[in-house]
């Protein structure tokens, strides 16, 4: 193994194992874990982070905030892209307020998929806002549930106030090929962004 290559992860042509990560975000119950499960090579696993938060109750006698421990779970899966490159997919915790507590959750990610349940558009507002705030490139995937009405994509783009340059695609998160196509849409979006960035230099 080229150990020197280890010190320079991401060096083109570097040998040895490499990984990339993509976040699957969206409101509670939009199908994040379903998508991870359908497209992963392995049975999805769960990893946890114990977060320490100052609680609302402050003990004035001692003058220190009481700390509470909260456990946040991430469901994840992986796809072997080739012999040396692994794609890890992480479903974000359903409660967006925990995202910023998990330091660096989105750092180093190629980008994110924001899943939207068209029957409950509002449930993914927060996720879209967070991606924009944290400057994470993303695509929006409308998870078409069996009893979803057939909404035109543009209507949903308007309703969620999604900018023109961000792709909105429909998918069935239970289906491997369909979930794969969403990931392909994300990578193509990243390529298009890169092309724009290179042109504007």
């Amino acid at each position, binding site marked *: 193994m080229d150990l020197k290559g*280890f010190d320079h*992860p*991401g060096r*083109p042509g570097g040998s*040895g*194992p*490499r*990984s*990339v*990560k993509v976040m699957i975000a969206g409101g509670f119950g939009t199908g*994040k874990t379903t998508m991870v499960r359908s*497209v992963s090579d392995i049975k999805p*696993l769960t*990893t*946890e*982070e114990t977060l*320490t938060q100052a609680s609302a109750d402050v003990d004035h006698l001692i003058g220190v905030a009481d700390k*509470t*421990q*909260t*456990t*946040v*779970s*991430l*469901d*994840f899966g*992986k*796809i*072997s*892209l*080739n012999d040396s*490159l692994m*794609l*890890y997919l*992480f*479903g974000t*915790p*359903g*409660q967006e307020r*925990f995202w910023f507590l998990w330091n*660096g959750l989105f*750092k*180093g*990610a*190629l*980008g994110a998929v924001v899943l939207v349940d068209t029957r409950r558009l509002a449930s993914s507002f927060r996720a879209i806002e967070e991606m924009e705030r944290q400057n994470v*490139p993303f695509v929006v995937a409308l998870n078409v549930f069996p009893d979803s009405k057939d909404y035109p994509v543009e209507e949903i783009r308007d309703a969620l106030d999604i900018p023109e340059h961000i792709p909105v695609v429909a998918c069935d998160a239970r289906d*491997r*090929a369909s979930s*794969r196509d969403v990931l*392909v849409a994300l*990578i*193509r979006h*990243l*390529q298009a*962004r*890169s092309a724009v*960035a*290179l042109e504007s*230099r």
Partner: protein
Amino acid sequence: MSAPRRSTNPSGLERYYVLTKGRSGPGGSASSLDVATLIVSRTSPVPGMQHEHEEILRRCRDPLSVAELGAHLGLPFNILAVLLTDLLEAGHVEARDPIPAHHAGRGPDLALLEEVLSGLERL
């Protein structure tokens, strides 16, 4: 997706305290560990090593992400990060961070995106 929950199991917290010898968070080389960082053993377990350190070295003969390691060992990320710091500092393991789409000052990594794309298209 499970909702965040309060830890109600004090014996779990005590276990973590013992495992980490009371250290609460990683500093130094492990503070940059990511859930998708790959860990690879560089040495075999040595006699007298803490059980969890041995277990990590055994499981990481082939590269394993921090997230997978945490799931297999039943340890939360921050506790595992403390244990990994010990192993990194002693040179027992190597850590390889996930590759971002952009490298600071070097622009987008188009070759990487192309590689990811062709991998996905083969699925």
